[in-house]
């Protein structure tokens, strides 16, 4: 499954970049995070719960930033498993500064689900993955556009 989109974020590019490439910050927008372990600046392990209705899986994801070209381009590979299933998500993000306060983010994500979820829940996956992806990106936008409270 491939998902892609473009997002206009009312925040400077540096801020967007640091948010997206910081495991601690970016995972605040992942669905229902159970735990986060940062291995090194480029790698982290996050446990999330995601799904639709009663169908909800706990996914243990190993995430790696495979390309980091500050401040404009990043590639992330997330691989993980849920009971009887495996998930792989390869995402790219390209940031362009519109001006000093606004950033355009182009993103694309290839998601592969294998195993039990694919076999039994294939008819739900497209919709669920689409919905979760939308939630993640609207959360990113919302958080970056929120007034800095610190």
């Amino acid at each position, binding site marked *: 499954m491939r998902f892609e989109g473009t997002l206009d974020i009312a925040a400077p590019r540096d801020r967007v970049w640091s948010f997206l490439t910081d495991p601690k910050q970016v995972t605040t927008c992942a669905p229902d995070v159970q735990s986060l372990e940062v291995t090194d600046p480029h790698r982290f392990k996050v446990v999330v719960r995601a799904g639709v209705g009663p169908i909800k899986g706990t996914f243990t994801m190993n995430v790696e930033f495979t390309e980091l070209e500050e401040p404009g381009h990043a590639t992330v590979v997330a691989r993980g*498993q849920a009971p009887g299933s495996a998930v792989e998500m390869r995402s790219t993000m390209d940031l362009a500064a519109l001006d000093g306060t606004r950033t355009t983010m182009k993103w694309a994500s290839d998601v592969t689900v*294998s*195993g039990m979820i694919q076999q039994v829940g294939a008819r739900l996956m497209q919709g669920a993955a689409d919905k979760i992806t939308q939630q993640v990106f609207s959360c990113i936008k919302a958080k970056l556009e929120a007034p800095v409270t610190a």
Partner: protein
Amino acid sequence: MAVEIGGIGHSVKRKEDARFIRGKGKYVDDVKLPGMLYLDIARSPLAHARIKNIDTSKALKIPGVVAVITGKDLVPLNLHWMPTLMSDKQMVLPTDTVLYQAQEVAAVVATERYIAADGVDAIEVDYEPLPVVVDPIKALQPGATLVREDREQKDNHIWHWEVGDKAGTDKAFKDAEVVVKQDLYIPRIHVSSIETCGIVASFDKVEGKLTVWMTTQAPHAIRTVIALVAGHLGLAEHKIRVISPDIGGGFGGKVPVYPGYVLAIGASVLTGAPVKWIEDRAENIQADSFARDYHISAELAAKKDGTMQALRVKTIADHGAFDAAANPSKYPAGLFHIITGSYPFEKSFVEVDGAYTNKPPGGIAYRCSFRVTEAAFTIERLVDVLALELKRDPAELRMQNFIPPTAFPYTSALGWEYDSGDYGRALRLAMDKIGYAELRKEQAAKRAKGELMGIGISSFTEIVGAGPSKNFDILGIKMFDSAEIRVHPTGKVMVRIGVKSQGQGHETTFGQIVAEELGIPVADIAVEEGDTDTAPYGLGTYASRSTPVAGGATAIAARKIREKAKLIAAHLLEANPDDVEWKDYKFQVKGVPAKSKTMQEVAFAAYTNHPQGMEAGLEAVDYYDPPNLTFPFGSYICVVDIDRGTGEVKIRRFVAVDDCGTIINPMIVEGQIHGGLTMGLAPALYEQITYDEQGNIQGGTFMDYLLPTAMETPNWETAKTTTPSPHHPIGAKGVGESATVGAPAAIANAVVDALAHLGVRHIDIPITPWKVQKILKEKGVAE
């Protein structure tokens, strides 16, 4: 008298029913031993991947989890690979790479079934995905993803096998007046017996004895395999006991050795506790041996008058990641060369290439004798294609070409010696029973109104009863089978045989063979099988071989007893043995019926009053090496109606005429045919397993793997002709699989026939409503 005996030809009610109707059958999951542990298996969600790490720590922390076994744990024991029946090898657990989805990755042993399942869930495996190849045709192309890195040969080609006269066949095609060609794909399917596979392994450390209850169709062969594979661990064949308890259906799926069996045995040896492993349905469908998956290209050469002359077939066989087929060793494509079917082709040439893919290993039969369904489906479909080409009635074209009854024994172009047959008689009977001529008239009338009905014929010839030792062995063990009969002093009998029923009713039918031969009522005969500590060595029940092989052994062992009994009878009758004859189930002095002795009287004497110089007792053993295979046949006719709106195919009638030679128990034979027909219907219209490009199985549970229910299954109509096998001791041929072999072509031919006037020549099975509806739309006749 004969009715009381319940010998051959009587519909004796089944003895085994008594326990099954009370819920007292003993299947493997019913075995519960003190201190028993449960094994469950973590499986790969990916079809091809490198295993970077397996983290078992969370699983081991769960209270009740006793052990977690990974491939690395098996390396020091040299148990991480095991041999297949086809001179290939198969992973028990991977050490670094998984090759198909649902492959075993680790095993959890726990005190309870539920805890073992929790343990499986808690295992974390870090996989690195690798490219996947699921299409055998792509797999054989240069540069394809390599499935088996462990082999020296660095491509996905397993073997090439060919039979027949290539040059002669090519010439016949060059000279032919008419050639028809058809590509057919016979998809991957799964036997899906209602009981899945399982084992209870119990190793007694003090005695060094391993006892195994296992869902196996071939307990003796399994014992030998265990001894050969695990001999280095101290398991010797005299200290291995394999018990096949009641089996809830086999159909070929319970012939191979699966990794779960090895893991359970290994876990019991390591822990000293009994270990049970019962797979669930998803594991059963997704990881156990599949059937079929043949990509076939077939050509038939004929004269304009319809005389069939030559047959040329090229096939690619998808075996998944390991060639774990269950075939006789000499025949990597099984008995596929029965493909000349019921017709006297002068020339034929068949070649098959095996390919590896990232799919589960196999393949086994699906209620058929080693690729015979693939063969029968191909030839019976191809004959219809020829009929369409020549605008001939398919029944008439078959009648014109059948091997005539006078030609038997008949040697086929591919070298089989058919024992006996009368194909025309079977087809005529089927046509009469279904009212063929009337149906053709009805069809014409319906066509005129735009309605779609079709009539399909399949006149198949099967090849079963493997097999003669000169050609047939599995891992070198010749494919004989055995019987041991003991007549007790009071005239009651114990029969032990080397085969194993999975529902075929051996306890009844083998008793009937002995009853017929010894004149002892079937009620007084106990039949035992499936326990290697007591039963004589045999190769097991599959490929319709029980009656042809073990049935032969049983009849001959009984005759050995009768020979000795005759001497005792003569002694009791104070007559010369030459003056004593076996008549009306008794020994009589020739011409003096009043002077007679029953087998019961003789049996008592065998222990109390046997002639001086003769050994006491009355028992015999026979290991029967059949002189030839048997060739059951039949003609099936199917009538279908097609819904022009939805494309649904509705089977209106189905008449099956079978000829399996001498019938031991007509009730059981009819039941076998009903079941076989339903397993012929299933792949024709419903069942298949496919894979997406990532190697995800599609159809891996009963939600999507569509076994027909009572609503899809028509009310089968059966009839028979009887053409005994001349070489079999009682003339029987075997029947368990005929209908599965013959039915798919009749159904497919009926659907194609319904659409033939629109120019349709072939539809691959399963014939789903959307395949049909697509054609209706293309031809402009959809509602």
